[in-house]
């Protein structure tokens, strides 16, 4: 019994790490533009796809052969393959490259969507950017569907061992990496000059401009960081479930949005807390009641929290005097 509870908790924290990473994207954008970025779940998906693409380029013999046939200058990848797949150092390096490229490219995709789909609507009624976001979401899903099959296996990469209590290398990897990223982001926003500029912009855009902060750069940066973190979660998801699909963002997207609301949307630590809480609640609910009811229970808890704390768990309510 004890074993079972612990292993469910480990599973919950793993899911929670992914939810927290995605939830940050929702909360960062909401904090600054008061807009729910419905395309964020597709950033997660794009991250998974790009990650898999880079991974295949580095380690998959058949993919390399096909690519090199068209782009001969990439032939060096074939010789690097044994290094990446054959040694531990190569493996670690390959993971870094996969995560790095995917995060950067997905971050750029996020900035592009902001530049062309949201910025022109900055002064439009609030519904307009929401609809634009839905459009981007549908566009990206269909682009993924057109481009490759609707679901592609993702190699597991890490050894499949169980250290007991359901602790596996992949779970350790996901939990540790997400905690590191969350910590780094938290420090970045609260202590660095640019982080402070982001906070100021989210509290009062005009006043931030009067301080000499370039608002458009801050917003662009926000749309880079959110999707980059989402991309990391997308690769985690691919590694964890062994597959990426064009609509893989849908459920994690809704769950993570819920997590952001649970913690207090607009609040970074709230999104982290909400993500882990939701993951753990879900894992325990599916372990002890029924996996069919896990979403019901997670959302009932959300409703209860919002009844008593409408601003979310960490939603600040600083009284603003006029």
């Amino acid at each position, binding site marked *: 019994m004890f074993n079972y509870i612990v292993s469910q908790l480990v599973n919950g924290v793993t899911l929670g790490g992914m939810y927290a990473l995605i939830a940050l994207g929702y909360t960062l954008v909401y904090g600054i533009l008061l807009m729910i970025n419905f395309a964020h779940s597709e950033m997660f998906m794009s991250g998974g796809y790009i990650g898999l693409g880079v991974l295949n380029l580095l380690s998959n013999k058949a993919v390399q052969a096909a690519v090199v046939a068209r782009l001969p200058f990439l032939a060096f990848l074939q010789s690097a393959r044994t290094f990446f797949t054959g040694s531990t150092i190569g493996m670690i390096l390959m993971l870094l490259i996969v995560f790095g490229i995917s995060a950067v490219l997905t971050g750029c995709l996020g900035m592009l969507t902001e530049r062309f789909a949201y910025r022109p609507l900055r002064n439009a009624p609030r519904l307009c950017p929401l609809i634009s976001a839905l459009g981007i979401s549908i566009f990206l899903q269909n682009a993924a569907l057109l481009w490759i099959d609707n679901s592609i296996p993702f190699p597991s990469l890490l050894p499949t061992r169980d250290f007991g209590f359901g602790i596996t290398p992949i779970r350790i990897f996901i939990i540790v990496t997400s905690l590191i990223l969350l910590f780094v982001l938290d420090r970045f926003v609260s202590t660095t000059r640019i982080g402070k500029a982001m906070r*100021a912009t989210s509290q009062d855009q005009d006043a931030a401009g009067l301080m000499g*902060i370039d*608002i458009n750069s801050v917003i662009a940066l926000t749309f880079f960081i959110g999707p980059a973190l989402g991309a990391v979660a997308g690769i985690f998801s691919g590694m964890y479930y062994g597959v990426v699909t064009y609509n893989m963002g849908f459920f994690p997207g809704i769950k993570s949005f819920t997590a952001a609301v649970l913690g207090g949307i607009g609040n970074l630590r709230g999104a982290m807390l909400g993500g882990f809480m939701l993951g753990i609640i879900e894992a325990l609910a599916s372990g002890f009641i029924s996996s069919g009811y896990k979403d019901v229970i997670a959302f009932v808890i959300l409703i209860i929290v919002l009844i008593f704390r409408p601003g979310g768990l960490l939603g600040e309510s600083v009284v603003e005097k006029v």
Partner: protein
Amino acid sequence: MAALTTDTPDVKSDAPQETVTADTAPMLQVTDLHTSYGKIHAIKGISFQVNRGEIVTLIGANGAGKSTTLRTLSGLIAPQSGSILFNGSDIAGLKPHVITAKKIIQVPEGRRIFPKMTVRENLDMGAFLRRDADGIKQDMEWVLELFPRLAERINQKGGTLSGGEQQMLAMARGLMARPELLMLDEPSMGLAPVIVEVIFETIAKLQEKGITILLVEQNANLALGIADRGYVLETGDIKLTGTGKELLANEDVRKSYLGED
């Protein structure tokens, strides 16, 4: 509009001379400025100037266009036409952060401090574009001397301060940027008379320190009392101008803005 386009080359060719005679030329020269909110034509071709070291005030009733003028000067709203020369270069239509970098600092209407940041963080944000750590530290000490109440509340969140303290914080934050031209938008609004007195005493001190001030006020009596010169705005247009004393003595001003019949 035609006149405007022919004016522009002249202004450009004058520019080198302006820099040579920077001390005598006005610091801020606004010429035929028009600003609109959508279809509402809020500023209808106003021209005025602020000389180095002066306190100049724009007074007028609600909706006369005072705040709109300041918001146009600080770049929060783009002007429709007209020129705004600051130290000889045209800043009309630039983004707020670019204008702030030129040391034109606006203390906005309604304070607009950062409510979830501490007093210290708010002051740090004022110095956002500065890199001189020592100078920032000195200025921090100076503004805290200027407003001792802020020193007492240095680690408190901005949103928990009283209205008067927030106004002090907004001014102190503006000063942290080391302004050449400080633009104050309704600093007395909604404050107790005791606090208003403190604010206006401080404005006088700032002038002694060499900071040029453009003051927008509804409280004409106070504003004209402290100002070297003033302009009276009415429905987007300048109706009257003169020294503070002249305007205070002017019959129309006394009737319309000082509540005398």
